[in-house]
């Protein structure tokens, strides 16, 4: 408990300092001025998302290999953390785009890929919600998670090829290209801060899932001892 509290406080402090740095310490960008500072949360949220998705893939494979419920708990936690980070990225993107490019959205390779990944992993969560048996839920979501992860590079490549064939309005390509060293330092701080947030979310969700598994075991014990279904917790998905 103590470790959890102190690490949460640490991450909160980190976020505060990172936010301050992003808003006030980082040098002003020539053309976009203040709005460019969204970049300091926007890019780190993608990095956090991909890290979370890699964790999910490992967890999925590990679950199928070992059948330990711990891996399933990690899988769903990572997916929810990834979806949160992806939502943040998809929400901050248009807020940045409108003043800079004049449009809310464009179907370029990266944005489209991210949107599809968001849909895929939300489908993962919906699938879990619609399956009742815990072991089947874990197995099938692991299989789907593996398929989704294998699909991700294909989605990116196909969108990339497609968009080079049908060129779109040229969009600020390299966000990280030729970065001012001061900006680079602030970016690094923000990446660490957002990763910290993602890890906190993941661990909290993991704790919830482990508790839920404990509850399921308890319910099974009750039903075995008393040979009747438990009246508590039946409605919970």
């Amino acid at each position, binding site marked *: 408990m103590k470790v959890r509290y102190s690490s949460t406080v640490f991450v909160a402090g980190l976020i505060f300092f990172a936010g301050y740095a992003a808003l006030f310490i980082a040098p002003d960008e020539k053309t976009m001025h203040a*709005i460019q500072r969204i970049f300091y*949360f926007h890019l780190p949220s993608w990095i956090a998302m991909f890290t979370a998705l890699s964790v999910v893939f490992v967890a999925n494979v590990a679950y199928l290999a070992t059948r330990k419920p711990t891996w399933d708990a990690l899988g769903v936690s990572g997916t929810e953390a990834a979806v949160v980070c992806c939502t943040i990225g998809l929400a*901050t993107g248009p807020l*940045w785009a409108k003043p800079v490019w004049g449009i809310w959205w464009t179907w370029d390779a990266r944005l489209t890929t991210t949107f599809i990944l968001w849909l895929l992993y939300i489908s993962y969560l919906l699938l879990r919600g619609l399956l009742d048996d815990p072991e089947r839920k874990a197995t099938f979501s692991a299989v789907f998670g593996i398929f989704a992860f294998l699909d991700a590079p294909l989605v990116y490549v196909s969108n990339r090829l497609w968009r080079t064939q049908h060129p779109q309005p040229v969009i600020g390509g390299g966000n990280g290209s030729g970065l001012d060293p001061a900006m680079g330092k602030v970016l690094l701080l923000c990446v660490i801060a957002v990763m910290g947030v993602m890890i906190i*979310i993941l661990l909290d*969700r993991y704790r*919830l899932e482990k508790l839920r598994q404990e509850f399921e075991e308890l319910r099974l014990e009750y039903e075995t001892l008393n040979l009747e279904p438990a009246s508590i917790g039946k409605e919970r998905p």
Partner: protein
Amino acid sequence: MKNFENLFAAWMVVWAVFFIYEVSIARRLARLKQDIESLKQQMRER
């Protein structure tokens, strides 16, 4: 600062998403703990 409204909106979005998610976890945790307690109580009664 030019375009400050959008920057602020983005900052708020980040906090809102994070906050809402953590709140939802906290609520589910509380309900689950309650369920575990009731179930343990039922088992003790039997």
